[in-house]
C-alpha cells in the first residue's frame, strides 16, 4: 500500500479529525447504549415500610404448628411450639430463596427445595443453608398476635 506523505499541518489536521470522529463515535454509541442499559434496570418500587403486623388470633393457631403470614411483601413463618411458645422467622431460606415450612414430624423448620433444616431458634443446623433465619418479635395482646421487626 502506498503511504501518502503528509505535511506537518496536514498530519495534525488528520489527527484532529481522527480524535473528533472517534470521540463522536464513542459518544454516539454511549448515548444509544446508556438509555438501553438503564432501561433494563427496574425502577425502585416505593415499598411501604412495615414495622408491625397483626397476623391472627391465638386460638386459631394450634400447638406444634407453623403458618406463613404476610409481613408487607415478605413471607414470615409463625411457629407455635409444642410448649405453646410463639416464634416468628423470615420464611425465606438463606440458601436459595425458597419459602420454608414448619415440619411437625421432626419439630424443625424445613426447606423443601434443598433439604435445609433450621431449629426453632432459626439456626441453620443441617443441609446447605449458610446462615440462620432472621427472627421477628412476636407480641400477644389479648388474643391477637402481632409480629414486628426485631430491632
Amino acid at each position, binding site marked *: 500500500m502506498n503511504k501518502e506523505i503528509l505535511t506537518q499541518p496536514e498530519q495534525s489536521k488528520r489527527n484532529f479529525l481522527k480524535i473528533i470522529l472517534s470521540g463522536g463515535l464513542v459518544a454516539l454509541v454511549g448515548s444509544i447504549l446508556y438509555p438501553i442499559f438503564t432501561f433494563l434496570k427496574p425502577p425502585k418500587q416505593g415499598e411501604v415500610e412495615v414495622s408491625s403486623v397483626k397476623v391472627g388470633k391465638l386460638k386459631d393457631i394450634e400447638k406444634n404448628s407453623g403458618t406463613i403470614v404476610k409481613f408487607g411483601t415478605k413471607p414470615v413463618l409463625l411457629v407455635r411450639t409444642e410448649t405453646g411458645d410463639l416464634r416468628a422467622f423470615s420464611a425465606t431460606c438463606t440458601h436459595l430463596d425458597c*419459602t420454608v415450612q414448619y415440619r411437625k414430624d421432626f419439630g424443625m423448620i424445613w426447606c423443601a427445595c434443598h433439604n435445609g433444616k433450621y431449629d426453632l431458634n432459626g439456626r441453620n443446623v443441617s443441609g446447605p443453608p449458610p446462615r440462620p433465619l432472621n427472627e421477628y418479635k412476636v407480641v400477644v395482646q389479648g388474643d391477637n398476635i402481632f409480629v414486628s421487626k426485631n430491632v
Partner: protein
Amino acid sequence: MKSAWNKFYSWLDERVQLQNLIQFMGKKYVPVHSHSIWYYFGGVSLFLFIIQVVTGILLLLYYKSGEEFAFESIHYIMSKVNFGWLIRSIHSWTANLFILTAMIHMFSVFFEKAYRKPREMTWITGMLMFFLALGFGFSGYLLPWNELAFFATKVGTDIAGVIPIIGKPLMIFLRGSEEVNGATLSRFFGFHVAVLPGIFTVVLGIHLVLVQRQGMSEPLGLEANSKSGLKTMPFFPNFLLRDLLFWLVVLNLLAILAVFFPWELGKKADPFASAPAGIKPEWYFLFMFQTLKYIPARLLVIDGEVFGILLFSFAGLLWMLVPFWDKKSNRGEQNRFINYIGLFAVLYIIFFTIIGWLL
C-alpha cells in the same frame, strides 16, 4: 400445469440462479458407516425446534402474561380452546425432547470429535444453541405461573445472584425486581418469545450454513483406514428422505406422549406459600441441583453454592472450548482422553439425574 410450473421455475431461475443451488445440493454426500445413525440427531433437533416455533405462535394467540392472567389463560387454553390441551402438551413435551435430542447430538459430536478442525465454529454455535435451549426451557417454565415454576425461578435466579460481583445486578436484571413477581413473568415472557428466538435463529442460520459448506464430518479412525474413501449416499434425496422418516417417527412419539401423558398445569403460584415437599427442577437441571445439595454450606473461604456454580461454569466453558485444547484430534490422531472425559460427563449426568429423581 407442467408448463406453468416450468415457466415459473425459469422465471425464478433467471433471477436468483436456482440451478447453482440444485447443483450444490446434488453434489452433497453423506458418509455411510457404522456410526451414521448419529447424523440424524441434528436434523431431528431442527425438526423439534420448528414444532416449537409453530406451537409457540399458536399459544401466543391466547396466552396472557401477568400475575393475574397467566395461570388462568393457560387453564383457558387447556379447557376451552379447541385442541388447546394438545397444542400446549405438545409444546411442553417437545421442549423436553428437544433438549434430549440436542444433548444426544452434542455428545455424539463430542465422542466422534467432529468438532475438530475445520468445524470449530459449528461446535461453538451448537453449544451456544444448547445454552439458549436451556434458557428457553427455564424462561418458558415460568410462563404458566404455577407453584413449581415459581420456586424453580426463585432458586434459578438466586443462583445467578451468588456469582461474585455481577451476580446481584444480573439477578435483578433477570427478575425485573428484587423478588420473583409479575415483573419477572413479563421479562421471562419477553425473553422466551422475542429475545431468545431472535438470537437462536441467527445462530442456527450460521450453524446450518457451516454444515452445508463443510459437509458431514467423518469419524477419525474410519477416515484413516479407508484408502478408496468411505461409502457415501447422496444428501438429496436419499439422506433427506431418511431424515423425514425419522421426523415422522418422532412426531408420532410426540403425539403419543402429548395425548396419553398430558402436561399438567399444577397449582397457581402463591408467593405466601411454602415450597411444596418433593419439589424438583426440570430433569435437565436435576444433576446440577442434586450436586448443589451435596456441597457443604461453606468450603474453606467461599460459600458452597458459589463453589458449585463456579465449578459447573468452568466445566461448561472447558467443554465448549474443546476444539481449541484437543490438539491431538486436530492433528487427526486418536485421543482417548477425550473419550474418558465424555464418558465421565455422561455417567455423572445420568447418575446424579437418577439420584435426584429418586430422592
